[in-house]
């Protein structure tokens, strides 16, 4: 799966969880939660959505590895290999 395709899916999932945000404006090194003002509840829903969409289970200790858009995409890419 290409980075671009992952990015599009991530944007779609974020938009679904927080409809009044604009994920497409995220820059690669932006802190996703901070920039989109996503609280811990929505963040958990996002992890659930990633799990349902890609079948990857992100353990809590890995939350630190998916803070920015760039790190999240890299994380998903590695998990999908």
């Amino acid at each position, binding site marked *: 799966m290409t980075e671009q395709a992952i990015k599009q899916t991530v944007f779609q999932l974020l938009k679904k969880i927080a409809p009044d945000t604009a994920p497409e404006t995220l820059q690669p090194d932006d802190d996703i939660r901070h920039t989109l003002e996503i609280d811990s*509840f929505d963040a958990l829903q996002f992890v659930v959505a990633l799990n349902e969409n890609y079948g990857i289970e992100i353990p809590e200790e890995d939350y630190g590895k998916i803070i920015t858009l760039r790190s999240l995409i890299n994380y998903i890419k590695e998990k999908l290999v």
Partner: protein
Amino acid sequence: MIEFCMPSLGADMEAGTLREWLVKPGDTVKRGDIIAVVETQKGLIDIEVFDEGTIDQLVVKEEEKVPVGTLMALIASTKEAVVKPEQPEVKTAEKIIPVSLTTTVKASPLARRVAAEKGVDLADIKGTGEGGAITKEDVEKAAAAQKEPVKEEQPTMAAEGIRMAVAAAMSKSNREIPHYYLETKVDMTLPLAWLSEANKKRTVKQRLLPVVLLVKAVAKALADVPDLNAYWDNGLQRKDVINIGFAISLRTGGVMIPAIHLADKKTLDELMASLNDMIPRARAMKLRSSELSDSTITITSLGEGNVETVYGVIYPPQVALVGFGSIIEQPWAEQGMLGVRPILTVTLAADHRATDGATGSRFLVAFNEHLQKPDML
């Protein structure tokens, strides 16, 4: 005959507009059924009925705006005989006086006539005449605005409604309630370690958030100190059930505070399920009447940013509000040793008419004791 009246969905609500009846005369209803949709400043709310019986008469018409407490429908209770159609209850009909809010609005006779002609509700107009009276020009402006497409503006109007609802409730609180504040710091090392282990055994969907532990610890502490689970209405009125209002901030501004019913009786998983169900509905402004009116205390958690301490404003007629800041790593001294721990600052805002600092202090001690035994929550 049971009288079903416009419910009060919070101290800030004065009136509501009936948008839709979901029942008709002759329908049987039971406790918890949603029988109407009412529009308030907090959006469209599903209104539940708390009795069993048969709908006898719908008194208020759809699109009618009536004050809280107005008789909306008559329900023949299941204990009563089935209504006999050959004996219409004329007396009951005479009793029903849905009060129109427009009668209290200050407006010139000409403005009233124009409003009636153009189908404009005077209650929705802000007057620019002497002493805030509504003039003919105000009515004409409002009539012109009505014709314009309003779809684009709806979110803004809803946000404004919420803002006004919050403003009314908080002003009342600040005006009437002599608040006192207590604050304590709680070491979250043990609860968070327990939660981390518990979540390892759960699927992603079943994971718990730290706030669930806090909600349950508050519920258990209230069972120990029931004077804080109460209303103030010419005296302290303890509540038999513990329904925790959980403040949910809306991205468009304002807060919704749905109640987690019987929070002390729910398991941590059930509490998490309640939040999973309520938070998206609150943000979409799709809450039920009981969720908006049943809270016996409020929790506000600002744990998402860098806020360390929350000094809350009590939601009347409740007598207490518990505030949580972020869990932040801080230096922590214990048994002569200094270390770094995840620390939560908990505050209690309480009504000094209802309780004193000693009661509040007992509550915070009980809260910490419960929180430090997460496997017992």
